């Protein structure tokens, strides 16, 4: 930790990493509560993995058609694929009640498979794919930070506009429908916001660990507050601590920062469960 603070003055990558972590906390703090309340953690995982297809496509197109797609970045491909995945999952969620989990699971793997295949056919070694999968907070660039800030702005704007509809959907779908909410469109809107959040989070912890950041901080906060507004604030706060403190603690050691973040999130959640249990027991005595 002390080492981290000593080095931050001369090492720009430590600054970008910190800023990226804080931007990620905004996205996951705001969207995490909806994800756990609406019980779409699994759907979010599917969206994240379908994004790999987009990354593979970006690689492939850039290598094969450098003139047309030279400016295409992997994050663009990932974002487009995640949004497309959100729309597809939204349609399935609404139209196909039967075996929903099977279909989502299939999309999860198919997206991944397409991505791997496209990467395989692309010449060169896909470092970017690895950093997308496992996260690479050390190599976050200012460009990435700017994009994350933009995505954060879109996410916040969407929540400000849609919050009442999202909450009504979480509470009681049928009643929301009777209040004139278009279930299909609202669902897809929520999933698209989740897709953008996934993209922001993967910059910090990587795709494989994104589920932890999307669910654990919000679930931890939900132990202690019982309304949506405070829950969003609390889980943003918890995310901010989780994306910075473990990273600082792991600095200079052999521990990977991404894994430290996720393990800290799980540990905090566990502590919160124990605290809630203890409080409940004391309340009964």
């Amino acid at each position: 930790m002390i080492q981290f603070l000593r080095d931050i003055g001369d090492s720009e990558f430590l600054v970008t990493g910190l800023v990226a972590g804080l931007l990620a906390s905004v996205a996951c703090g705001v969207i995490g509560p909806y994800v756990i309340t609406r019980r779409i953690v699994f759907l979010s995982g599917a969206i994240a993995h379908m994004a790999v297809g987009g990354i593979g496509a970006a690689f492939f197109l850039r290598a094969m058609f450098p003139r047309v797609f030279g400016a295409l970045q992997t994050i663009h491909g990932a974002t487009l694929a995640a949004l497309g995945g959100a729309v597809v999952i939204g349609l399935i969620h609404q139209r196909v009640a039967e075996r929903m989990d099977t279909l989502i699971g299939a999309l999860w793997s198919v997206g991944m498979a397409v991505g791997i295949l496209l990467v395989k056919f692309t010449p060169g070694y896909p470092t970017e794919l690895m950093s997308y999968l496992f996260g690479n907070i050390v190599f976050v660039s200012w460009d990435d930070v700017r994009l994350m800030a933009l995505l954060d702005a879109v996410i916040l704007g969407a929540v400000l506009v849609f919050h009442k509809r999202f909450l009504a959907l979480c509470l009681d779908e049928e009643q929301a429908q009777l209040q004139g909410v278009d279930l299909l469109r609202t669902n897809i809107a929520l999933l698209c916001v989740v897709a953008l959040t996934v993209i922001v989070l993967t910059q910090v912890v990587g795709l494989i660990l994104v589920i932890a950041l999307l669910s654990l901080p919000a679930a931890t906060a939900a132990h202690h507050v019982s309304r949506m507004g405070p829950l969003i604030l609390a889980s943003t706060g918890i995310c901010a601590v989780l994306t910075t403190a473990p990273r600082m603690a792991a600095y200079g050691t052999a521990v990977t920062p991404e894994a430290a973040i996720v393990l800290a999130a799980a540990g905090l959640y566990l502590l919160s469960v124990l605290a809630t249990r203890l409080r409940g027991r004391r309340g009964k005595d």
Partner: protein
Amino acid sequence: MSEPSPVVQIDRIFFAYPPPGAEWVLEDVSLTIGPRDFLGVIGPNGGGKTTLLRIILGLLEPQRGVVRVLGRAPREVRTRIGYVPQHARIDPGVPASVLDVVLTGRLARSSWGFRYGRGHVEAAMAALEQTEMAALAGRTMATLSGGQRQRVLIARALASDAELLLLDEPTAGVDPHMEQSLTDLLHRLNQRLPIVIVSHDVSFVSTHLQRVACLNRRLICHAAQEISREVIAEMYHAPIRVVRHEEACPLSDHGCRQGCSPEGTVLGAGASGSRARLGETLERQPPKQLDRKSLLSEGDRPLARDESPSDLGTAEGDGVRFGRGGQPGTP
């Protein structure tokens, strides 16, 4: 004589759940609900009660027949209908207070944005006052009892400034005191809007309501006082005690014309699984062997098992008459 236009007009609808070709859940059902009606719908499990409500709400579309609510297709006016579902689908784990839940009843009238305006909060609080739940507005749903949750759902329906109120089993899990205050509340509300209650609770319906529709795939309307053992027995295929009351309950003059038939019809849906409500005897009895007098005087007599149950369900055309079932307009 100028008639007020009906709030709900259902004309000969047929409805079956998929797959196509399945048995009708509702068959040739017609019903008219006027601006001051207070209608109870009773019937056995699977008789189509909730389905009928969901059709009025436009959540289901009948395969045949026409439904008009407030003069329009149900879908277009569903935000003007207050609906209290049978099972609260509210997940108690959702981070929302009672007030938040009631506020969703204002959603159709509110703008986009994070918060509900002050006017909406006031309307929601007023609705909570009416169901005696205002003191618990800050609590979460998880901390409430079943009866309290029911009252929150009713408040949510009231908060929407509904022009028609539909309640599915509102007295399930509600204690007698609350049942009474709920009834008083509904009667007060009925001064300004029509109400439809679906219920299993035959005694509740027959004690408090003017008009009762018996629904078991087909629908027949009665004045509540005509709900006799035989009517119930026919419908549930098992005798059930009915709390009778003597005061006159005038039928509203815009009754359920097409729905009412002067002749009783035995309702043919399979009633395996039907059960007597109030813990009454389950021995079957052929309805035609009881006349009205014996019903009134010996209504609670347990019935002998040997009164051939095979007669049951064959009473079509036996002329079980409902005193005032025949309304102008029926043949």
